[in-house]
């Protein structure tokens, strides 16, 4: 029992609710949001240290022991993601102060922002399959409103698509949960794992595993991503950066959790299918990123490639692959937030999303340009930036598993990323300066701090992976040995 675990979930919730009561105190809301996200980051570091000393921490809500109660489980993997989430949300909320506009702020923007974080943190930390569904709905409901908030025509169109596809996948999620419950008679993730290990993973359970892959794949932007580029480019920058960095990652987290804790008995079917989907995702995403000349579209297709690459490491299902996946997942969250924020600033400055209409921004905005350059290099995986170590381990993992094709496709996708982001860099920053500082549609005042923070983070993670290496290795150990997770959840109680 560790009550610290509830805070990353309820602290943003309480703050969000308070903002509804204090609707007109915008300044206060801003301060509280920043403080809350900072505190959550601090708490997650504290929990991580407890885990590295005492093992996986659990909290059985209401004192009902597993598998009867619903509990929160904090293993190293989920806490690393909670920490990254808080840092990114911290940066995005600071970015939104200047860019989001009075009207949205008055219409509960900060409340919804924090409800979204509640849902994301809850999804990462819950130890119960149905509770995972509930937290998914919390974050989805918040995201529906955030996509549509502002009510422009394009937002309305994309919201419709986004809502329909997500309601559909949630329905499939429920069907999958119903099947799991009818077969195993439990919804506690650790207990499901025990029961499936006892009974053996037969064809029916494998089919359910694929159903879950479909459900989470839709949310993660894996293969079935056709809705994603539109929905992620419709809302304002702070929101789309948050979506790109967090929402697809929740789907990826769910796939990783299910495929390492529950459905790990038939990797030659399920994990191979995951690998094939990851490869197709990388190829299609790469083609999209190369083909478009609209800055928002290029960036969203990069999100899709990232999703494919992270899951390639899990598809390999080796220790190195999982290590690479976790490194790359953390890196991807940070760097996607970074390039989305910079992309937003570029659009904000030039007033257009078409690459051909912008040029020479580096003369007036050298810092922005070079930070974008660093972000791009990190995205491609050039040492010593944070993408490198993840790419190396994922590729090594796929080669170890004998999936050479998957590794090669990952590397080819990196070249496509290189081409697509350099296209942005050369078009937007190089060339003749067409806009003088007076002609620009906006300023970079007040938005450089979060961008600089994220850039510093990607450099720090690249140069000093030792800082988090011990944590990541603990996380991999937990992922590859489900028994550690199960023992922590049941805590020595008899497993019924």
């Amino acid at each position: 029992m560790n009550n610290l675990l509830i805070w990353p979930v309820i602290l943003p919730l309480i703050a969000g609710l308070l903002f509804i009561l204090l609707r007109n105190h915008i300044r206060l809301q801003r301060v509280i949001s920043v403080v809350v996200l900072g505190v959550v980051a601090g708490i997650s570091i504290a929990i991580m240290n407890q885990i590295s000393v005492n093992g996986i921490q659990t909290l059985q809500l209401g004192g009902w022991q597993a598998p009867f109660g619903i509990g929160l489980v904090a293993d190293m993997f989920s806490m690393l993601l909670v920490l990254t989430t808080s840092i990114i949300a911290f940066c995005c909320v600071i970015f939104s102060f200047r860019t989001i506009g009075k009207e949205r702020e008055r219409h509960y923007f900060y409340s919804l922002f924090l409800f979204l974080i509640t849902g994301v943190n809850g999804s990462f930390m819950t130890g119960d399959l149905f509770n995972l569904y509930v937290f998914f709905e919390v974050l989805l409901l918040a995201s529906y409103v955030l996509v549509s908030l502002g009510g422009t025509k394009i937002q309305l169109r994309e919201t419709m698509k986004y809502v329909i596809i997500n309601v559909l996948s949630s329905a499939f999620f429920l069907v999958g949960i119903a099947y799991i419950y009818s077969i195993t008679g439990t919804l506690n993730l650790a207990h499901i794992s025990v029961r499936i290990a006892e009974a053996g993973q037969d064809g029916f359970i494998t089919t359910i595993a694929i159903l879950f892959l479909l459900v989470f794949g839709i949310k993660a932007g894996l293969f079935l991503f056709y809705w994603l580029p539109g929905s992620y480019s419709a809302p304002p920058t702070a929101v789309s950066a948050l979506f790109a960095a967090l929402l697809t990652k929740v789907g990826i987290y769910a796939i990783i959790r299910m495929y390492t804790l529950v459905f790990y008995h038939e990797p030659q079917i399920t994990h191979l299918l995951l690998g094939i989907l990851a490869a197709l995702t990388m190829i299609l995403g790469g083609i999209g990123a190369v083909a478009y000349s609209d800055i928002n579209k290029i960036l969203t297709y990069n999100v899709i490639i990232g999703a494919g690459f992270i899951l390639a490491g899990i598809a390999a299902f080796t220790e190195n692959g999982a290590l690479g996946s976790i490194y790359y997942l953390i890196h991807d969250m940070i760097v996607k937030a970074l390039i989305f924020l910079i992309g937003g600033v570029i659009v904000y400055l030039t007033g257009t999303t078409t690459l051909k209409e912008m040029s020479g921004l580096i003369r007036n905005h050298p810092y922005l340009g070079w930070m974008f350059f660093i972000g791009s290099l990190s995205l491609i995986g050039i040492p010593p930036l944070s993408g490198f170590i993840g790419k190396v381990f994922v590729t090594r993992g796929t080669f170890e598993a004998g999936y050479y094709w998957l590794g090669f496709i990952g590397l080819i996708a990196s070249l496509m990323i290189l081409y697509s982001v350099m296209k942005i860099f050369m078009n937007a920053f190089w060339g003749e300066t067409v806009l003088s500082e007076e002609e620009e549609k906006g300023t970079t005042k007040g938005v450089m701090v979060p961008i600089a923070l994220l850039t510093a983070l990607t450099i720090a993670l690249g140069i000093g992976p030792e800082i988090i290496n011990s944590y990541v290795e603990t996380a991999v150990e937990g992922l590859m040995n489900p028994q550690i997770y199960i023992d922590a959840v049941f805590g020595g109680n008899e497993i019924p």
Partner: protein
Amino acid sequence: MKPEPNDVVLHTVTKLAAVIIFTFSIDLFWAGHHFPGGGFIGGLTTAAGIVLLYLSFDIERIQTNLPIDYKKMAALGVLISVATGMGGMIYGDNFLEQAFGYFDLPVFGETELATAVLFDIGVAFAVIGTAITIITSISEDEL
């Protein structure tokens, strides 16, 4: 100007029915501790009563007589529930841990008091607030 609609029957019945519905909803709420009922369904019934009032009288009149911001009510409800959950943590128990005890009260005699009721009050507030907010915002739509 449109003539005033003749809805004496509706008004008279609503005035009576609303009282019955509200009483019943409170009864459902209390029943919820040991029998079918509880904060969710009690709140929903209350919301149904308020909607009936909205339907038979006009929105302005109800809002002047019942000046509640339902959005805030919903937020307050969830806050109450979360705060009840945190109550257990003060005594070093798990989040959402509940407690109950028997007390000798003047009028009721020996009565069971439980913290779960506070949680349920929060749920009821949240349900009433959300339901009324949804219904009034749909009715505000201009076609």
